[in-house]
């Protein structure tokens, strides 16, 4: 089976800094891959390279995409940024319809089909009655769903999520990740997400890749990648791993407990 996304030997240099060096990553159709790593490791840059927003050396292959134009890419890859720009005064309906831009072209009006797709996505994400409200007026959780709705309206096969749970409380974090998982199953989406919360990264998604100092340091199933050694090495963090039926739980340890020999 050809992977939906394949990155080979990817190099990105931003303002003279070598941000990504020889990154290899693949995700097959319908797979959910989480990218974890310390701040500044290059996670967002990797997503931006997949979106064609930064110049790179190496190869990025997205299944079925041969056209190099931005609009063609946007029909294949949808993006939920970490801190989306909330356009002042824009109605939720208009905002979600922006997701249809790569399909309709810059100058054309949206079709009845575009409106139907946008309405469907809104009701799927429980925002059915919100079309006439401004995006600004939504709560944090509703906003995140509105941004997701815009990305889903793109009807792309690949969904890139940059820290989708930042700024959400635990309940809303869970809601968003469950939603992504459900949508992935419904639509066969390939999901590549960056996440800070390692326990959540282990719980949702099939594989984890650790990105550190611009390289993919480890990749594999959560239980194989999330080890005390890996986390100490790449995050500089001291943790215990607690085994749970649903996956490893990463618990930070204090300096005092480490001295007491309270190691797993």
């Amino acid at each position: 089976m050809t992977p939906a996304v394949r990155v080979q030997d990817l190099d990105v240099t931003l303002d003279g800094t070598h941000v990504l060096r020889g990154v290899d990553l693949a995700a097959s159709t319908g797979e959910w891959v989480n990218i974890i790593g310390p701040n500044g490791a290059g996670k967002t840059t990797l997503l931006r390279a997949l979106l064609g927003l930064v110049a790179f050396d190496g190869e990025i292959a997205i299944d079925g995409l041969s056209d190099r134009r931005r609009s063609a890419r946007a029909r294949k890859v949808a993006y939920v940024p970490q801190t989306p720009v909330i356009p002042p005064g824009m109605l939720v309906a208009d905002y979600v319809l922006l997701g249809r831009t790569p399909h309709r072209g810059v100058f054309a009006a949206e079709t009845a089909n575009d409106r139907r797709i946008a309405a469907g996505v809104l009701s799927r994400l429980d925002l059915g009655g919100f079309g006439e409200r401004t995006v600004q007026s939504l709560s944090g959780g509703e906003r995140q769903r509105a941004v997701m709705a815009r990305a889903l309206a793109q009807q792309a096969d690949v969904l890139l999520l940059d820290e989708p749970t930042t700024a959400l409380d635990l309940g809303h974090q869970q809601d968003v990740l469950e939603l992504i998982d459900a949508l992935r199953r419904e639509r066969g989406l390939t999901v590549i997400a960056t996440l800070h919360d390692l326990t959540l990264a282990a719980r949702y998604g099939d594989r984890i890749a650790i990105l550190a100092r611009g390289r993919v340091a480890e990749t594999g199933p959560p239980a194989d990648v999330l080890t005390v050694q890996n986390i100490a090495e790449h995050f500089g963090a001291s943790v215990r791993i607690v085994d749970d039926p649903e996956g490893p739980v990463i618990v930070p340890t204090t300096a005092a407990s480490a001295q007491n020999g309270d190691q797993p």
Partner: protein
Amino acid sequence: MSDSQPNGGPHVVLEASGLRPRSLAAGLAAAAVAVVAGLTIGPVDIAAHRVALQLLDGLPGLTIDSGLSDAHAAIVEQIRLPRVALGLLVGATLSVSGATYQGAFRNPLADPYLLGIAAGAGLGATIAITSNLGDGAGVFDAVPLAAFAGALISVTVSYVAGHLGGRSTASLILAGIAVASFLTACQTYVLQANSDAFRQIFAWILGRIATSGWSEPALMLPYFVVTVAVVLRYRRALDVLAVGDEEAAALGLEPRRIRLVVVLAASLGAAAAVSVSGLIGFVGIIVPHTVRLAFGSSNRLVLPLSVLFGGAFMVLADLAARTALAPAELPIGVVTAFLGAPFFVLVLRTSRREIW
């Protein structure tokens, strides 16, 4: 999953923002009221129905007796009509340019003069006046030509300098501020060296909708058409740019190219407006924001309605400028700010819409 049902469809009816018949009618009505007022009110009051008949008489193939004396007919056709036309064109162009700048730069304070058009035009006009190349009257006078050239040069320099400085719109705005400051300093220097021309230059800076026959409206018309045609074509793209360059690019657009096209179109129109009527301030800010407060923020309605309400506002402001102290005329820049500012504050206070 509701959106995958081709026939059932979701219950929610989703409508995109756009120009509704009601808001279009409101804009057309405002423009019509302004035109009627501009044609009928003045030192000589002329009944509206006679004005209408006189205008119909002017159409090819129609001969109607409006009942106006030759002198009154001449006032309508030779004096007021060109002036109203110029007011419509200048007001519409400045307003739609302002709306475009605000959308393209995602900045509510952006106006058509953001990239140094005012300073460039001011310097051009000052040089032309102080070198006695012209007196600031008439279209083929050196003053409007020098102002037009100065405006376009300053926008070009700002754009080039801004893009050398980086990729953000902020660097472009800062470049515009630097260019404007530099050109204003040059203008002040020229002015100090030629203080006898101060009054004339000051009058030019405050702006006017003055016509000698149809030459000014005729000069303005092609720029108005180009600006409005380009900018309206890009109205949907400007709505996408509202989410920022990065997200707009992720949605398949080329934000920098779009910004270049619309800003150049808006600048061309604004430069032409400045060269025929001087620096009329405030219009490019208050008209688009009033439209947003009254009708909504989508560029699909803000841009076309700015054309209509901007034209109407300028015709009414010019009416006030020529009647308030008649027979003397107030500079129109004074009127747009004196009437426009309180009106805008009122709209700001009463509207419940979030626009920025």
